[in-house]
């Protein structure tokens, strides 16, 4: 199953992008996350406690960022092993577009489960994945918007930086980048 949804985040795209790179933001946003460590480059090690259908488990695994085309798109993927409960894998292809209100974040989420989770809980996986994605992006939106309102926040860029970035984006218009993307997309046939 793939499910697609979007959120308007009232923050500049560069701020949204850097929030996606932040271990603290991700930790705050992943539902049931107990621990998260690491970096965007190396990946984040996470511990998440979740109940999927009849199976409650502690999942330990890695969250990685890939297909990174700053500041437009990336893929967020996670794989967690829940011991005897089996495993869960999920990914979200995220696109960021500038809009008059701020940034439009579009995501396409896919979730897979294995082992006992598949055997006992497969019928609830779609609903579970939707709930997890909704919660994650809702929290993420709140987190980013709050950080913009609070310039001291670690994950938010300072106001002058935001101004500068925004100007740069307008100046380049993303025009050069867009054609470069088009070339890449053709190359990979996506």
């Amino acid at each position: 199953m793939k499910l697609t949804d979007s959120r308007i985040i009232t923050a500049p795209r560069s701020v949204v992008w850097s929030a996606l790179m932040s271990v603290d933001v991700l930790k705050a946003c992943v539902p049931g996350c107990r621990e998260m460590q690491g970096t965007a480059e190396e990946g984040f090690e996470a511990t998440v406690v979740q109940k999927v259908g009849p199976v409650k488990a502690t999942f330990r695994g890695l969250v990685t960022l890939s297909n990174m085309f700053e500041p437009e798109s990336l893929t967020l993927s996670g794989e967690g092993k829940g011991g005897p409960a089996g495993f869960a894998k999920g990914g979200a292809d995220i696109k960021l577009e500038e809009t008059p209100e701020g940034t439009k974040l579009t995501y396409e989420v896919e979730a897979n489960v294995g082992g006992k989770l598949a055997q006992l809980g497969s019928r609830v996986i779609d609903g579970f994945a939707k709930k997890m994605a909704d919660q994650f992006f809702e929290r993420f939106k709140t987190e980013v918007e709050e950080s913009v309102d609070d310039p001291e926040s670690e994950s938010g860029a300072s106001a002058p930086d935001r101004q500068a970035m925004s100007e740069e984006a307008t100046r380049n218009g993303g025009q050069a980048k867009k054609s470069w993307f088009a070339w890449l997309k053709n190359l990979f046939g996506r």
Partner: protein
Amino acid sequence: MPADGGIGAATIRREDVRFLTGTGKYTDDINIHGQAHVHFLRSEIAHGKIKGLDKASAEQMPGVLKIFTSDDFAEVGGLPCGWQVTDRHGEAMQEPAHPILASGKVRHVGEPIAAVVAESREQAQDAAEAISVDIEELPAVVDMPGALEDSAPKVHDDLTSNLCYDWGFVEENREAVDEAIRNAAHVTTLELRNNRLVANPMEPRVAVGDYTSASGDSTLYTTSQNPHVIRLLMGAFVLGIPEHKLRVVAPDVGGGFGAKIFHYAEEAFCTFAAKNLGRAVKWTSTRSEAFMSDAHGRDHVTKIDLALDAENNFTAIRTETHANMGAYLSTFAPSVPTWLHGTLMAGNYKTPLVYVNVKAVFTNTVPVDAYRGAGRPEATFQLERVIDKAARELGADPIALRRQNFITEFPYATPVALEYDTGNYVATMDRLEDMADLAGFESRLAESRERGMLRGLGVNCYIEACGIAPSSLVGQLGARAGLYESATVRVNATGGLVVMTGSHSHGQGHETAFPQVVADMLGIDAGMVEVVHGDTANTPMGMGTYGSRSLAVGGSALVRATEKIISKAKRIAAHLMEASEADIELGGGQFSVAGTDKSVAWGDVCLAAYVPHNYPLEDLEPGLEETAFYDPSNFTYPAGAYACEVEVDPETGKVSIERFSAADDFGNVVNPMIVEGQVHGGLAQGIGQALLEDCVYDENGQLLTGSYMDYAMPRADDVPFYAVDHSCQTPCTHNPLGVKGCGEAGAIGSPPAVVNAVIDALQRAGHDVEHIDMPVSPSRVWHAMQG
């Protein structure tokens, strides 16, 4: 003949007293002093390379005795396959190694990777969680035609492809069949799937291995339908234990339905580990494990063509099937889609030309093997569905079309190698039309319509080959075992008897039916006869119970052994009465001299045999015990006609079975109550397949139906009150009891009746629906109605 306990009496099942009062002794009830427990760490990945396994911290956990991996089994054989199929081109099937514990790769969800033996089951389970296995996931092969594409990942890297075999039968008829289809006045084609099923016996599998170091004897207690077969396979091919040092006991077994025929890794493991550790080792499957380690059933994808001439005579049948083998070859898996399926494609009809092609395919799923009916339900379903479709296309009455094409003369040699010894398909159809009140269907239809419900009628026939079978024949067909059966009849000094049978009862009622046979022959009370089965230490070598063979083959061995007893007892009686042996008659438990009033009682003869004070010792051994092995000359061919009436809710697509009638010809019947129970159980399983049951994998090879929350078993309110009849009896011509077997008929004959009825209901309501795959669930029916 004792009226209440001989052949034909509906004797109450004596074994039910212990089954119904909780006093049965099942394998899980067996606990051996000092036993340890094993928990298997099973793969949760369908296909992957095992890159590492770290058990160091698990080994330090409380209670852990040893953690076994494939390395521990380097010197041991893998699980053997008991049947070799030769393909269309004369080549042997591809036969992959089948390790006890996964070696190098995992190939299906549920495959055991490591085995933790600990003091308690919970400790073993905890330690298994501490084992870390590094598996590099590989793309899984799930879809069958897709598995044969060049680009498909290979389940077994050392095989040339995922094709186990490409079987053609009868290969010489291939072109003639193609030509007949090209030249036919009408050809009906149907593509369908025979859904994958999980056997789900009430009792999950259990194994307890024990080892006596002083004598070097191994014992395995296991939930098996055939302990002698397990002893032979495990002893000779896996563990290298000679049969005199290995005892296999299958005590009370709570249902098998085929899934307990096969030799499983857990049995070999417990036997091996008991010797390795010097401790008894026990494993009890959880229901979750059963879903992913018991062999599954069915899973065929088929295209069938039926050719007819201008007068609606069947002229040719061509069928192409992809049969799922799963990841490994289970013990008898190759035989199911071939010899148990292709040979039945003639059905009850005199179609002169038949060609069956079967491609058996490896996939990353649990191995598939025989399940109640095994191959014959798959044959019956496609044939009886395509005939129904043909009748509709031709505007013919489906019953009349069948009747027109019935085989009516016996013996009849089919174009697919069988010789039906006897049968009367017209009689069973006549009986069915009567008992199902087909004449009253129209008024029931009108009544349903008044309530806003759709109603449909489905009828079909079936034939099966069972009582398997002649060893010489199955040997030619690739069986790596014989298929005789055995019985020892031991008469005790005071006249009671013990029957030791090589077949096995796991619900069939041997303990009641076998004494009825002996009692009938000797003219004594059935209560004087006790049945022993399930222990290789005290029963003669036998091939076990499956394929509706216990009475037809095992019962025939019992008849032969009892005949030997009678023969010897007559000689003893002749001596006691100083008469000629030829003049001795046996009746009512008395030996008498013909034409005189001289007689001795059964008990006196038995006593004389064991207290031979007055006994012809110079030409007769003392004692009264005889053994017989029986190898039949042919299969038996039960057949019948079934009718199903359904109501379909047009709003929801829900199907409810309103009437179900089964007219069976099982030949002679020993215990009609047991036969009726067998038919009821078979019908419930067939209706379960038709309406509810489906084993589903996702595209990654994850088992999605791993519990009763997702795998729908039939419940009491899913099935109707059945009308069951077996008064049409054409006795088998080649076994001494004239019996044919009844264990699988219900499961073989019922799925097409149900689907035919659903399609009929939709067609009568104006929906142009030609086929719906099983299970015919509300959502499938609803979608079909929406076009």
